[in-house]
């Protein structure tokens, strides 16, 4: 089973670890930008269930490394 996190928890983590970040919804994904770096493939979630969807944890692992907030993120979320 894929490991998942709730989108609202990811936003809460970003509010703490990446203050001032920008997030924008595109046709295919959320695009999250912080300190000049952008993670471009954070999923929108399944169709029809996008208010607070489950997001596969691997995306969050990749995103927090790319945005260089992995240490802070690990204190906010279970990224294992």
């Amino acid at each position: 089973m894929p490991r998942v996190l709730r989108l609202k928890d990811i936003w809460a983590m970003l509010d703490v670890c990446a203050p001032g970040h920008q997030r924008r919804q595109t046709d295919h994904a959320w695009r999250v930008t912080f300190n000049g770096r952008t993670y471009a493939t954070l999923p929108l979630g399944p169709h029809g269930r996008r208010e607070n969807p489950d997001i596969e944890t691997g995306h969050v692992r990749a995103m927090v490394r790319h945005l260089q907030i992995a240490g802070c993120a690990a204190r906010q979320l279970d990224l294992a």
Partner: protein
Amino acid sequence: MTEIPSPAIGTALPFLFTYRDTLFGPGFVVHVEARNGRALCVREADQWWMYGVNPGGMAAPGADPHAAHAAFRKAFKHVLIDIAHEVHAFDEFKAAVETFFGETNEGYVSEWAAAAETIRQGRIDTTGFDIAPASSPRSIAVTIKALDKIDADDNTADLEVRYAEAA
């Protein structure tokens, strides 16, 4: 019957990929050739994950490395399409794609290099993918495609993916 063991969690495979895409933007047709992008495919606890190194801002999962790469390839094209939707002119598209491809996920650089070293040492079964030097030069070319140069081949995804081997 002998069961083949699954790769251990944490197994990491270093890839180099080259993708070619033809896309439509506002008022232009564009050809994108991303050459020797880097990605690290890791056997995580739940499934395989292909993490972008260059471009660093993307990842995709799959049941095995081939499936993870297929999802990664699809996600790459989706990013290009998203950019095409957001820009107003070719120069803007070109700059945005170059920025996307040029971003490095520093968090995976050393692991990618270490994985390329395991390929050199022959510690990874490389069946299923060709091998290329880890130092293969990376580049991105974004060019206008003239209408008389478009043909049916542009409907087909064009890609190469190879293991990266340290020198």
